């Protein structure tokens, strides 16, 4: 029996789709059978981030309307064994799917897959309600900005009201240099405000833009700091205890010297 995890945030542009792509790929690399659902109907993007945009035949709306079978709509990712994508419809709107249909779809997929990861649209309207309808767990994404944290707080409230207990927090685009200077809220600051459990922290990393350009999730190469962060989050998702990586990347000469002289690095 699989588990449905919704990736949500409230605010747009904080990294829901990137996170969905990376966690899905990460789980598949750990030999799990995974399906990614793009629930952002009308603003389809997960296919593009995954590099699967040229292979779409049927979409989520076709499936729930019974125009095709689930199997026909699932795109198999040939690079990663066990990874599938159910793309969103691009020419329809959020009302093309109902929460009941999402629940049914998730239940059907649970028989076949270990993890069903739902990429939620921004906002808290119908599209969001559909996306969370079938979810067992939720990951709330925020960045260290006031607007993103405020929206995350709102979403956490709604999730809890919808019986999705204990959502987990992913803090994206952290810049350790700014945190150090006191110009960016730290991980501790954000946890203090939102008061939920942390699943991981992803640094602001230009490699994410590069890998998105190529349609290859950063988690797969695992060399970039963001890719490593996503690998760790994937393991935590599966229940493993992994310490947070040192985002400051303290392998440089300067930081080594600092350590040598007993400077505390953040």
């Amino acid at each position: 029996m699989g588990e449905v995890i919704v990736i949500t945030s409230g605010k747009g542009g904080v990294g829901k789709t990137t996170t969905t792509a990376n966690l899905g790929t990460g789980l598949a690399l750990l030999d799990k059978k995974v399906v990614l659902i793009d629930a952002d109907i009308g603003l389809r993007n997960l296919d593009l981030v995954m590099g699967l945009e040229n292979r779409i035949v049927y979409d989520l709306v076709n499936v729930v309307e019974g125009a095709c079978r689930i199997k026909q709509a699932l795109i198999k990712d040939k690079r990663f064994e066990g990874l599938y994508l159910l793309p969103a419809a691009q020419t329809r709107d959020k009302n093309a799917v109902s929460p009941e249909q999402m629940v049914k779809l998730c239940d059907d997929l649970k028989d076949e897959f270990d993890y069903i990861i739902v990429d939620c649209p921004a906002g808290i309207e119908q599209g969001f309600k559909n996306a969370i309808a079938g979810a067992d767990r939720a990951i709330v994404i925020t960045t260290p900005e006031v607007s993103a944290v405020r929206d995350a707080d709102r979403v956490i409230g709604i999730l809890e009201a919808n019986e999705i207990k204990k959502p987990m927090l992913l803090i994206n685009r952290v810049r350790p240099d700014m945190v150090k200077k006191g110009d960016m809220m730290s991980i501790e600051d954000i946890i203090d405000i939102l008061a939920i459990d942390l699943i991981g922290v992803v640094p602001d990393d230009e490699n994410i833009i590069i890998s998105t350009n190529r349609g290859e999730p950063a988690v797969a190469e695992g060399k970039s700091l963001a890719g490593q962060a996503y690998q760790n989050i994937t393991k935590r998702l599966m229940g493993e205890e992994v310490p947070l990586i040192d985002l400051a990347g303290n392998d440089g000469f300067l930081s080594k010297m600092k350590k040598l002289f007993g400077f505390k690095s953040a």
Partner: protein
Amino acid sequence: MLELFSRLGRRRTSKDVAKERLKLVLIHDRANVSPQFLEMVKGEIIKVIQNYMEIDEESLDIQLTKTVSEEGEGVVPALIANIPIKNVKSVGK
């Protein structure tokens, strides 16, 4: 070294400002209370109190803040009212 000085100086950094502003705005968000709602509550409170006391409506201050809960379960919203009394009426004494 610079870092050390700035820590000693304890200047208020932009993240401190961000945190403070967020905490305040979230109190209102979480309580799901609009300014109109607060005005309504304020109006009703004044009405009731005026039956018994003469109050200084000008310097009256009612706001939603937060306080540590008595059960120690963290921070909970609280309605704080500061109502200066000019005179206690003799009704009901």
